C-alpha cells in the first residue's frame, strides 16, 4: 500500500468515527456554516465539537504548516482529505476570513511572532476576523481610502470609517487598511494593521441587506489604539499586501460558481415533465439551463486545470480575476434559474411553506457576489490591462 493509500484508509476510518452525523447533513444556508470566535454563533451543538476534533488534527486548515496549527498536508494529501470528506458528505468544520484571507497574507508577509500569535487561534476557531477595506468614498477605487493612522511611538491612533464590513459586529479582530501617509501617490502610504474589535473607540452599526439579513456593518474608529507589533509588512507599503489578500478573497468567492451536485435540468424535468424523447417540455428554459450547465462544467474544469498547472509550475496570469468574474456571474445565473424552475414557492419570503424564503434570499444574496471582493467590472479592467496589456 502506498503512503497515500495508507493515508486515505486512516483518514476514512477517522472521519467515520469522528464526524457527527448532524455534520454530514447538506449545508442549507449561511446559518449552517460555523465561523467560530469568542462568542460563536452555534446553530447545532455538534458544530463546535466537529470543529474542535478537526482542529486537533490541524484539519480545519489542512494545508497550513503544523507549527501554526495547520495539518501540514501536501497537495495530494489535502485532496484525499477533501475527497474522503465529500464521500460522507462531511461539512467543512470551520469557515472564516482568517482562513481564506488573512492567513495567506500573514504566511507571506507576517513576522514569525505575528504568525505564532495569530495563526493558531484561527485554526482552532477561537478568533474570528473581519475585513476593513472599503470606505464610503473608497469602493472600487480602494486605494483612495482615508482612514487615518497617527504614529504614537509604540502604537497607532486610528480614526475614520469603514463600510460594508462583513460580520464586523460578530468579529473579534479586524485586518484593516489605514493611511499612515498622505504625501505620495494614493497607492503609497497605506498600511496593513491588525487590532482587536473590542478596543475602545470601535463601534459597529449593522446594515440590512436586500436579502433581509444584516451580515455587514458600518464601522467607526474613534481614537482606536493599534499596537505597532501588529503592523504587517512595512509602514506605508500595505497596498501590496492588500492586493495579495484580494487574490485569495476572489478565489474564495469564485468557489460559489462551482456547480452544485444536483443537476438543475433534472430538477426541471421532475417539476415540468419531459416530452416523449426525454427533453424538458419548455424548450426555451431547457436551452437556458443547458447553457448554464455547460458553462458550469467548463468553469469547474478551469478551476481544476489552473490548480494542476500551478502544481506543474505553469501558470495563468490573473487567474483569480477570471475566476472571480466568471464564477460570480455563473452563480447569479444559477440563482436566476432557481427562480425560473422553482416558480411561486421560490419567490416565498417567509413562513415554513417557503422554508423561510431560502431560495429567494439566496438569489438576492448572490447579487452581492459580483460586487464584494472587487466588482465584475473591476475584474474585467484587471484582465484587460494586466493580461491583455490594453492601455489606459
Amino acid at each position, binding site marked *: 500500500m502506498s503512503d497515500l493509500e495508507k493515508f486515505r484508509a486512516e483518514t476514512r476510518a477517522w472521519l467515520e468515527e469522528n464526524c457527527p452525523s448532524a455534520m454530514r447533513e447538506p449545508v442549507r444556508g449561511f446559518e449552517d456554516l460555523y465561523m467560530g470566535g469568542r462568542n460563536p454563533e452555534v446553530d447545532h451543538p455538534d458544530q463546535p465539537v466537529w470543529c474542535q476534533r478537526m482542529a486537533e488534527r490541524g484539519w480545519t486548515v489542512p494545508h497550513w504548516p503544523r507549527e501554526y496549527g495547520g495539518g501540514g498536508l501536501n497537495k495530494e494529501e489535502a485532496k484525499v482529505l477533501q475527497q474522503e470528506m465529500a464521500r460522507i458528505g462531511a461539512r467543512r468544520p470551520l469557515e472564516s476570513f482568517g482562513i481564506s484571507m488573512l492567513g495567506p497574507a500573514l504566511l507571506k508577509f507576517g513576522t514569525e511572532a505575528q504568525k505564532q500569535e495569530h495563526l493558531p487561534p484561527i485554526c482552532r476557531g477561537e478568533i474570528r476576523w473581519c475585513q476593513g477595506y472599503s470606505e464610503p468614498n473608497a469602493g472600487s477605487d480602494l486605494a483612495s481610502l482615508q482612514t487615518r493612522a497617527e504614529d504614537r511611538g509604540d502604537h497607532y491612533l486610528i480614526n475614520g470609517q469603514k463600510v460594508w464590513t462583513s460580520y464586523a459586529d460578530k468579529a473579534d479582530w479586524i485586518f484593516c487598511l489605514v493611511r499612515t501617509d498622505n504625501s505620495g501617490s494614493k497607492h503609497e502610504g497605506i498600511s496593513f494593521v491588525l487590532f482587536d474589535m473590542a478596543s475602545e473607540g470601535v463601534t459597529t452599526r449593522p446594515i440590512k441587506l436586500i436579502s433581509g439579513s444584516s451580515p455587514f456593518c458600518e464601522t467607526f474608529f474613534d481614537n482606536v489604539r493599534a499596537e505597532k507589533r501588529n503592523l504587517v509588512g512595512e509602514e506605508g507599503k500595505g497596498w501590496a499586501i492588500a492586493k495579495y489578500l484580494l487574490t485569495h478573497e476572489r478565489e474564495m468567492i469564485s468557489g460559489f460558481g462551482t456547480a452544485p451536485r444536483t443537476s438543475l435540468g433534472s430538477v426541471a424535468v421532475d417539476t415540468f415533465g419531459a416530452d416523449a424523447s426525454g427533453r424538458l417540455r419548455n424548450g426555451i428554459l431547457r436551452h437556458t439551463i443547458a447553457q448554464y450547465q455547460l458553462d458550469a462544467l467548463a468553469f469547474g474544469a478551469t478551476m481544476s486545470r489552473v490548480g494542476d498547472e500551478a502544481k506543474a509550475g505553469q501558470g495563468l496570469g490573473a487567474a483569480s480575476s477570471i475566476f472571480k468574474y466568471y464564477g460570480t456571474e455563473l452563480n447569479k445565473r444559477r440563482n436566476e434559474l432557481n427562480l425560473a424552475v422553482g416558480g411561486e414557492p421560490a419567490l416565498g419570503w417567509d413562513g415554513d411553506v417557503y422554508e423561510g424564503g431560502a431560495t429567494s434570499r439566496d438569489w438576492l444574496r448572490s447579487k452581492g457576489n459580483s460586487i464584494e471582493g472587487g466588482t465584475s467590472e473591476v475584474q474585467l479592467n484587471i484582465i484587460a490591462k494586466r*493580461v491583455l496589456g490594453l492601455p489606459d
Partner: protein
Amino acid sequence: MALVLTEEQLMLKESAAGLLAEKAGVAQLRALRDADDALGFAPDVWRDIAGMGWPGIAIPEAYGGLGYGYTGLGLVLEQAGRHLSPVPLQSTVLLGATLLNELGSEAQKQALLAPLAAGELHVTLALQEGPLHAPEDTALRAEAEGAGYRLHGSKCLVLDALAAQQFVVIARTSGLPGDSAGLTAFLVPADAAGLTVERRSLVDARGVGALQLDAVQVPADAVLGDVDAAWDGLSRSLDIANIGLAAELLGIATEAFERTVGYLKERKQFGKVIGSFQGLQHRAAELFAELELSRSLVLKALQAIDADDPQLPVLASAAKAKLCEVAQRATNEGIQMHGGIGMTDEYDIGFFIKRARVVQHCFGDYNYHLDRFARLSGF
C-alpha cells in the same frame, strides 16, 4: 488525470506551431484559394507533415503509428486551427484513422493503418446527406447482391474528397431513416465504377466534395466492422472527431482573438489607440475568460478519449457546443473590432470567420450539440 500538458506534449505543440506557421499558414491557404486548387492542399507539405509522423499520431504503435493518443493529435489540430493550415489532418487522420481503428477488423487495420500513418493513404468519411448533420437519418441504401453489396444514393460535405483513395460510406442496410440501428460502414475506393466525386466550393476554400453512388458494387469484405451495427463505432468516432474539431476551433478562436487584441493596440482613433476604450476592453476581457474555459473543456475532453472515459459522449458534445459558441463570438468580434478593414478580403481576419463556420457545422453545430449535451445530461 491532471488537466495539464506533459513536457512531451508541450514539445509537440511547439514543433507543430513551427512547421505549420512556416509551410501551411494563412498565406498558403490564400494562394491555394486564388489558384482555385482542386485538392485544397499542397502534397509536398503533406509529405513534410508525414515525415514528422503526425498522420500516425493517434494510431497505436502496433499498427505503425506513434501512439501519442488523441491529446497529442488535439494539440496539432489546435495549431492547425491557429494557422488555418490547409492540410488533410481532419479528413484522413481525425476521421479516417479513427473510423478504421474503431470499426475495422484486425485484417483491415493491419492493411490500412500503416500506409495511412505513413501519409500515403487518404481515407475520408462520407456521412451527411441533407443540409444538417443527422447520422440516424442516413438513407443511402446498400443492398446485398451475390457475395457483396450495391450502394445507391448521395453524400455531401465529404472532407478532402478529391484527395481520398478510400471513402468510408455510411449506408443503410436495414431499418428506416431515423433508426440508429441498421447502418453499415463500407470502404469504397475512389475509382469504383458508378461513383462520381464532385468538387464543391464552401466559404472556407478548403478541399471538399459530394459523392453520387449509382449502383456502386463492393465485395463483402468492404464492410468495416459488422453489418447493421456501425452505430456504436460511428458514434464514438464522431465523438472523437467533434473533440478534435473543438481543438481546431480553439486554435481558430484564440488566433482571431490575439490578432484582434493586437489591432486594438495599434489602431488610433479620437487621438488614442482604440484598445483604451472600455467598451472594447470589457468585451475583450470577457472573451479572454471564455477562451480559458474553452481550453479547459477541450483538454478534459481530449483526455477523456485517451482514458476511455464513459463520459466521452457528454464531454464531446459539451466541448463542441462550447467551442462553436466561443469561436463564433471570437470571429464576429474579430471582424467588428477591426472596423472597415476587417471586411476586406486583403486582410486575413476574414479567413478565420469563414473556416470557423465550416468547422462549427461539420458533424453537428452548436444547436445539435447543446441539445445532445442536455439529452445526455438527463433533460
